[in-house]
């Protein structure tokens, strides 16, 4: 309690008062008013622009006297307890001050330009804060006992602010608001405004609310925020429409970005954080969202044109445009998705276009399509990575686009396999500007999009077999790297076969070393690659007849192998090998020819006979007719002339005769003899029917597997399960599955239920 700590003189007098005299209401209030309230109000009126009260508040003595008087009047015994009337006087005093000073001051500038009014608006609020706070300090004792003990009484602070709100604020809030919004409008139009003033003016709405319990931001919300938002919407609606009509898409985007950034600036500078969401949503809606379709899709300079520009000289600026689109539209609900859709449509269109052209041209450059697809993929992958920051929905758009067009035609799978082969072959000229690793990555990604993976896998395996057996790979490391990438994409099952192929080749090399050490006494040298059935592509083995020249050593190797690995079976396959054959054409001419093993077999025949007919060749070698035809004709070809043929025509009949050409000449000592390609060019664009056979087996196997496990299953469920099991390889059609089921019923693996027609039972 104050009285104890004060100077003796004062306390004595107040004590004396308390002990001796009861203060009357009239006297007491008179003293309070003259000593405390009035001088205080005067001081407040004179607060300068900085908001600091001159010097001090009222002198200490006056303050204490005021406080003491109030205190005494509140503790006096009834009927002299003046708590309640004092509370009333407090309110009256403030109200009087508002009416006499505040309101006139504001009214005076009401008609003035907004900035002038706002200055007074801000000043009045500052003054009020001092006024109310000061009054509360003086009348604090009321807050201690009277207010809590009464019902429905606000404490002096809240009471004061409530009075301010009712008396002053309500009257002028509209003027203030209009002034504020007007300033914002002008600022948006480009005219610089006094941001500090705006900040303080807006703060009034917020602070007033905060002083009042249960009100808080309501005032700001109702009296300013909602108008602000409405204004903003209106403003940007008009402005964006004008700009949409005037500007190209990229330019409009720049404009849009500026609007967004401006508003963000405004928020941080003077608009209350509460408005952040509403303001930005309003801005983005009007400027970006409502125009999205028109802007990106319909405009000639829209997203399609921007994407096209990413390949030209203007690529850099096109990429910036894309980044801007991403930055802006990722904040708009649904905006990102639409952009992704637009990109997907664009890529799909391009891809389909490439496929269409390739279909129609049927040209010999089989790599053109794949190269185009790889470039397309590379370009857009980079766009997704850099301009769209690797966002999932864009990755997905790219993936969907590729999956759509890449599966339009069966032959894309085959082309891709062939491309991969040429990529990994020796002397590959395929690596474009990107490195080999990068290209391989793209090939694997394209493979990932393909639905009929089994076509690609079969072809790839065949090509790999050829490369391994004929030692055509550029580098073992790249081969292994490619397999590793495929494994990531495809899983272990198929790639393990490829790895087994590698192991076979490795082991074969070791075997050959071992064999050569042991057997040094043969005229011919042999190199065998031992391939495990199952890992290598299925080729049926033609039983050719091995002539004596090579028969001995072949047998020797076979025995060598079988002693090492008993219990295995070894069969020679002569269709894929190469041989160096030394041919004595004439007494003076002896050359070494590099031929296929089939051709070797043919040549060896001439060791026994000078002239051989085609029929005899078929019989003596055991080579299948078609292959023999190719082998022989390529040697008899006028450009090659290793053999001569009678009759000397392109056609071939059984009785046509062949001889080694005694007039053969060639400057080189060792000459490679090509096996000419078949006259009928295989149509690149059809699928090998063997694939369909394979698929039938896979469907059968799946059906039996599923039925064995489930015993009983409804038709529809069976179909669904089969598709689920095979989808990683290819997508089976419902009718095909039905056909397989019918066949399995005939073979008595399954039977229909007696009563429920669409129920199948597994037959034990």
């Amino acid at each position, binding site marked *: 309690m104050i009285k104890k700590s004060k100077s003796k003189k004062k306390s004595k007098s107040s004590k004396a008062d308390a002990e001796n005299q009861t203060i009357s209401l009239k006297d007491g209030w008179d003293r309070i008013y003259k000593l405390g309230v009035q001088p205080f109000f005067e001081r407040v009126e004179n607060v300068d622009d900085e908001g600091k009260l001159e010097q001090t508040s009222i002198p200490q003595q006056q303050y204490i006297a005021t406080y003491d008087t109030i205190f005494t009047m509140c503790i006096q015994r009834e009927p002299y307890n003046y708590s309640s009337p004092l509370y009333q006087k407090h309110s009256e005093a403030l109200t009087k001050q508002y009416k006499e000073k505040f309101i006139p001051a504001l009214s005076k500038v009401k008609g003035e330009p907004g900035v002038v009014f706002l200055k007074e608006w801000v000043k009045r609020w500052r003054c009020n804060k001092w006024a109310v706070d000061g009054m509360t300090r003086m009348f604090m004792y009321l807050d201690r006992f009277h207010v809590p003990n009464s019902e429905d009484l606000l404490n002096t602070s809240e009471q004061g602010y409530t009075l301010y709100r009712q008396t002053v604020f309500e009257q002028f809030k509209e003027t203030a608001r209009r002034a504020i919004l007007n300033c914002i409008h002008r600022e948006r139009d480009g005219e610089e405004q006094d941001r500090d003033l705006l900040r303080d003016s807006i703060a009034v709405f917020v602070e007033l609310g905060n002083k009042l319990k249960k009100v808080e931001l309501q005032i700001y919300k109702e009296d300013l925020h909602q108008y602000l938002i409405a204004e903003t919407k209106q403003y940007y609606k008009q402005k964006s429409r004008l700009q949409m009509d005037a500007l190209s898409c990229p330019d409009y985007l720049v404009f849009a970005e500026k609007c967004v950034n401006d508003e963000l600036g405004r928020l941080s500078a003077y608009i209350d954080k509460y408005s952040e969401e509403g303001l930005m949503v309003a801005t983005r809606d009007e400027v970006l969202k409502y125009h999205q379709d028109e802007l990106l899709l319909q405009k000639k300079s829209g997203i399609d044109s921007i994407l096209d520009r990413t390949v030209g000289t203007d690529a850099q600026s096109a990429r910036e445009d894309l980044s801007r689109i991403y930055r802006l539209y990722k904040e708009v609900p649904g905006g990102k998705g639409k952009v992704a859709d637009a990109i997907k449509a664009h890529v799909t269109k391009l891809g389909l276009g490439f496929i269409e052209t390739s279909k129609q041209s049927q040209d010999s450059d089989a790599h053109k399509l794949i190269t185009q697809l790889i470039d397309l993929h590379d370009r857009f992958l980079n766009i997704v990575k850099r301009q769209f920051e690797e966002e999932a929905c864009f990755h997905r758009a790219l993936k969907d686009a590729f999956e759509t067009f890449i599966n339009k035609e069966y032959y894309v799978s085959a082309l891709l396999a062939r491309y991969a082969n040429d990529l990994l072959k020796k002397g590959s000229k395929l690596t474009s500007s990107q490195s080999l690793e990068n290209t391989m990555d793209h090939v694997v990604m394209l493979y990932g999009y393909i639905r009929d993976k089994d076509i690609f896998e079969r072809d790839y395996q065949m090509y790999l077999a050829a490369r391994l057996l004929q030692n055509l790979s550029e580098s073992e490391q790249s081969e292994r790297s490619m397999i590793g990438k495929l494994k990531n994409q495809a899983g272990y099952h198929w790639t393990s076969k490829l790895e087994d192929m590698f192991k076979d080749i490795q082991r074969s090399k070791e075997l050959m070393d071992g064999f050569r050490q042991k057997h040094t006494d043969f005229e011919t040298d042999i190199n065998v690659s031992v391939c495990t059935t199952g890992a290598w592509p299925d080729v049926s083995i033609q039983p050719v007849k091995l002539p004596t020249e090579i028969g001995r050593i072949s047998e020797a190797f076979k025995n060598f192998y079988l002693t090492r690995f008993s219990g295995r079976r070894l069969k020679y396959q002569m269709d894929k090998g190469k041989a160096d054959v030394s041919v004595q054409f004439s007494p003076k001419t002896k050359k070494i020819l590099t031929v296929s093993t089939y051709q070797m077999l043919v040549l060896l025949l001439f060791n026994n006979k000078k002239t051989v007919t085609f029929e005899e060749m078929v019989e003596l070698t055991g080579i299948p007719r078609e292959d023999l035809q190719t082998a022989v004709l390529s040697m008899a070809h006028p450009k090659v002339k290793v053999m001569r043929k009678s009759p000397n025509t392109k056609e071939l009949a059984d009785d046509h005769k062949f001889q080694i050409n005694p007039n053969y000449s060639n400057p080189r000592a060792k000459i490679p003899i090509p096996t000419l390609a078949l006259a009928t060019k295989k149509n690149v664009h059809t699928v090998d029917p063997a694939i369909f056979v394979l698929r039938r087996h896979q469907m059968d196997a799946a059906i039996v597997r599923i039925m064995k496990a489930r015993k009983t299953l*409804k038709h529809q469920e069976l179909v669904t399960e089969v598709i689920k099991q095979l989808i990683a390889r290819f997508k089976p059609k419902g009718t095909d599955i039905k056909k397989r089921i*019918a066949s399995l019923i*005939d073979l008595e693996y399954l039977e*229909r239920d007696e009563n429920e*027609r*669409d129920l*199948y039972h597994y037959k034990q």
Partner: protein
Amino acid sequence: MPSYSVRRQRIKEFKDVCSGTSDSIAQQVLEDNSWNVQQAINHFFNNRHLYPELKQGSKGKLEKIWKEYADKEDPSIMSEQGMLQFFKDCGVNPESHETLAIAWHLQSSEMGLFQKEEFVSGFSKSGCSDKKDIKKQIGQVCRSLSDEKQFKEFYKWIFHHVKEDEKKKTIPTELAIQLWQIVLSTKKHSMPLLEGWLKFSEKAQASNMQVVSRDVWEQIYDFLRETKSVDDYDDNGAWPVAVDEFVEFLQEDKK
């Protein structure tokens, strides 16, 4: 289960038609057929061989009858003339499915031919000893085909009969078409799509349906019975592919 007096009534009815049966057999057959008298009678006549305790027909007498129909060169089979006579004696139309019904009853192993063994033992098991008995028996068999269950059995059996060889899985479509025409003609009124099916089969036998498998044979019966019009068709149903193609054919035709 019907009441005791109703049961006794039905047993009596059964025995009246199926002469020579005992009470216990009558009861057995009726029980197996949900106490439906007509059904029981049909079942009984077509499965006489299941009740060997009944009086069998005289094999000697049957062999004598057989001689009338037998082929001179090979008496183990019926001659052509013999068959025509046989059908006449039975009161059966040689052009109709009833000839097949006889084959079914005798469980003939060869299509279009009756063998002595099958003739004698088959009729003997059904308790026939003379031509009168045989005629009555055949009559019963044909009548029983109006029972849906019996007819389906008969229809399914035809496939095996015609196939002859156990190992074979299919019959030529040409043959199937003829059979459908003969056998299903009686059902024409309840199978509005039958005409269409025959037309389709004619067309398809050169290309995608050169043979008919057991599944198609059996399923088409259900299909034609159940499906009154192409609009009823549920293409997610487990009908064989041939049926799907048939429906496509009909829809094409409609256009």
